């Protein structure tokens, strides 16, 4: 399966081609080159998936294949960064997800970004991102993951700051990069710790279940936790940064300053789930060596999910609502991993997490692309500038509705199946977790339909141009993604991906499923009642009644302000400025002081060297006399 290398190389070459020669090309040529190259990569990825999953199972599991592998940088005999391609069920699944969404976004952007300054640059960055993300998922070792982890970070930075003359976009891109960089520091330290004790970066060795490679770490503890727990907890910080888990989520809502297709690709479907993917990749390490960290993953995921769902209920910018919804859904995936076991039915959470990752990528990309079409039509992100669009944009309306039903968990759409598995896994872990997640699912249904009704129903707003349906190159991706959303739920996912690799038959637990359908329907009903007409006084009255909570939620519970305080007041004002002052005045002052003392001393003894021979002769004579006296009488 050596051809898989081309899945990576094509976007990379496209990046270099468009980056170097893009400015000389016509915009549409650049767009077509980017799209065609990605289409070929997508075709190759589908073929890989077909090839991989049609191969016979060995010992009841799909064999891990490494079709390509080179040593890239040598550290010591055991530690070296390799670049390679590792194919196993989850990486093949990710290849399919990434290339599909990326292809849709490439096609969609031809319409959405038409006429923008820097169109070629945009496609170059998209190619760079696709390359980095594909490289991340096929990594054979944790350091390769880190390399591509940084590369997706920088592609995200470049794309968020695509409109670089807009101060908000610049600030948002900077924030995204620095927050994730801070998290990556945790990741890097985690890698250092892990490799110091295990003497390997390789995923295959780390996840082989062979306990002996952790033997060196036995008995080494720090603050009560084993050192491997610390290492994987630090790696999880990196994951939390990339996947926008609380409290490192603050960059994701701001990242919506980027072009909307970029939000769909990077900040909804692919890059933000890299954290989930990495936890899944290292799942055996978490499960066998650091079960307490896995509980932490579950708790962080659940809390983030709740927090983001609450905040999403009161946001008015449609992209922000979707951003918080993304954070909340990624929380679901994290929870599912956190509550998962390893074998058979106990590994349900793992399977559900990956399943949700897959379905969420599709319907969330669909939501963002739909939102893009709407923004394209009304030239605003604010809900108050929308309303009554269902007749003017029928295709967008239908596809958006499908996605909303999917995320709300209504059968037969894909979100129902994956979310249901997660809830089932949570109930098995503990009823508290199960009910919490069910409540969040209800909130999800509520805010999504609040969004839906505010956009497509209610009172039409005044517009300068009459909103109209998007062109075909924007609606086709919507239709394709909607189709996938309709059918993806019926994929026998457990057959392909499970924690221990052994095929598992998904069966709906009708008790859980029934409950969740009822809850979702009630939430949708409430949203319908409150927002369908757009004239209902209930939302306003509720906001008035719970003014404190409402305002706090609208301001995202002031987490951003807290960070602002920490970075600007404490780090800049409390550390950097004093250090800079200290350097100029104390250290440099000491050096200047030395020079000053030397100069003053010279001036002081300068009169001794008057140049008056008479004075010299006098001193000379005096000296002679003194020596004479000393020689004669002492």
């Amino acid at each position, binding site marked *: 399966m050596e051809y898989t290398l081309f899945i990576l190389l094509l976007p990379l070459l496209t990046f270099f081609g468009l980056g170097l020669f893009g400015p000389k090309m016509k915009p549409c040529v650049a767009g077509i080159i980017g799209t065609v190259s990605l289409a070929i990569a997508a075709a190759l990825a589908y073929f890989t998936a077909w090839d991989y999953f049609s191969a016979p199972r060995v010992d009841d599991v799909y064999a891990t294949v490494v079709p390509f592998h080179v040593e890239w940088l040598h550290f010591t005999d055991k530690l070296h960064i390799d670049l390679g391609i590792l194919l196993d069920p989850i990486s093949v699944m990710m290849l399919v997800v990434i290339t599909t969404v990326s292809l849709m976004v490439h096609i969609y952007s031809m319409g959405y970004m038409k006429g923008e300054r820097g169109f070629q640059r945009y496609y170059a960055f998209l190619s760079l991102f696709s390359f980095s993300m594909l490289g991340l998922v096929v990594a054979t070792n944790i350091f390769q993951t880190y390399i591509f982890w940084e590369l997706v970070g920088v592609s995200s930075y470049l794309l968020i700051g695509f409109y670089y003359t807009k101060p908000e976009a610049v600030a948002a891109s900077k924030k995204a990069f620095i927050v994730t960089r801070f998290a990556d520091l945790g990741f890097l330290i985690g890698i250092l710790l892990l490799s110091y004790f295990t003497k390997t970066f390789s995923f295959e060795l780390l996840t082989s279940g062979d306990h002996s490679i952790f033997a060196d770490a036995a008995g080494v503890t720090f603050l009560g936790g084993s050192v491997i727990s610390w290492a994987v907890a630090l790696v999880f910080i990196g994951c939390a940064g990339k996947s926008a888990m609380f409290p490192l989520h603050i960059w994701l809502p701001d990242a919506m300053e980027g072009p909307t297709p970029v939000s769909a690709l990077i900040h909804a479907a692919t890059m933000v789930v890299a954290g989930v993917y990495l936890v899944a990749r290292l799942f055996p390490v978490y499960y066998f060596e650091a079960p307490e960290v896995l509980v932490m993953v579950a708790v962080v995921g659940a809390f983030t999910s709740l927090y983001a769902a609450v905040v999403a209920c009161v946001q008015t910018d449609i992209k922000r609502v979707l951003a918080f919804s993304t954070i909340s859904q990624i929380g679901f995936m994290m929870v599912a991993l956190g509550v998962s076991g390893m074998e058979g039915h106990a590994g349900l959470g793992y399977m559900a997490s990956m399943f949700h990752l897959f379905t969420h990528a599709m319907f969330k990309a669909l939501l963002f692309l739909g939102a893009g079409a709407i923004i394209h039509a009304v030239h605003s992100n604010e809900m108050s500038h929308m309303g009554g669009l269902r007749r003017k944009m029928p295709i967008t309306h239908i596809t958006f509705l499908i996605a909303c039903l999917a995320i709300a968990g209504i059968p037969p759409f894909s979100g129902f199946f994956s979310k249901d598995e997660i809830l089932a896994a949570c109930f098995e872990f503990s009823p508290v977790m199960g009910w919490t997640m069910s409540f969040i699912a209800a909130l999800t249904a509520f805010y999504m339909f609040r969004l839906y009704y505010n956009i497509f129903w209610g009172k039409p707003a005044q517009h300068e141009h009459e909103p109209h349906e998007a062109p075909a190159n924007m609606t086709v991706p919507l239709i394709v993604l909607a189709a996938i959303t309709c059918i993806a739920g019926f994929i026998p996912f457990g057959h392909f991906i499970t924690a221990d690799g052994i095929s598992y038959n998904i069966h709906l637990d009708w008790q859980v499923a029934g409950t969740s359908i009822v809850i979702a329907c009630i939430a949708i009903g409430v949203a319908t009642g409150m927002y369908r007409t757009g004239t209902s006084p209930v939302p306003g009255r509720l906001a008035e009644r719970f003014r404190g909570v409402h305002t706090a939620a609208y301001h995202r519970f002031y987490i951003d302000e807290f960070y602002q305080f920490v970075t600007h007041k404490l780090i800049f004002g409390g550390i950097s400025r004093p250090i800079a002052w200290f350097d100029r005045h104390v250290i440099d002052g000491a050096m200047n002081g030395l020079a000053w003392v030397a100069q003053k001393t010279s001036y002081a003894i300068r009169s001794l060297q008057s*140049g*008056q021979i*008479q004075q010299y*002769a*006098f001193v000379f*004579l005096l000296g002679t006399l003194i020596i004479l006296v000393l020689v004669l009488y002492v």
Partner: protein
Amino acid sequence: MEIRMEYYLIISTIMLFAGIYGFFTRRNLLAVLISVELMLNSVDINFAVFNRYLFPEAMEGFFFALFAIGVSAAETAVAIAIIINIYRNIRNIQVKKLGTMKH
């Protein structure tokens, strides 16, 4: 009355210290030069006296005195030339005023 060697030496010592004193204290370049001459001459006297009294059969002392007189004449010529040049340039030959080259 016999003229003893010590008398010459006393004279030359007085001349030497007068010269040294003048060299230290005089501020006029010409006076400084004269003081230097005084010291040189006192040494010349010593040469002659020692030769005459201690080694009457040798002539080195006299020759050395003559040689020193010659050198000092040359030196005086150079010094006076310098002094005249200084005087032409800054109209002054006071030692204290000649610090222009120091700055």
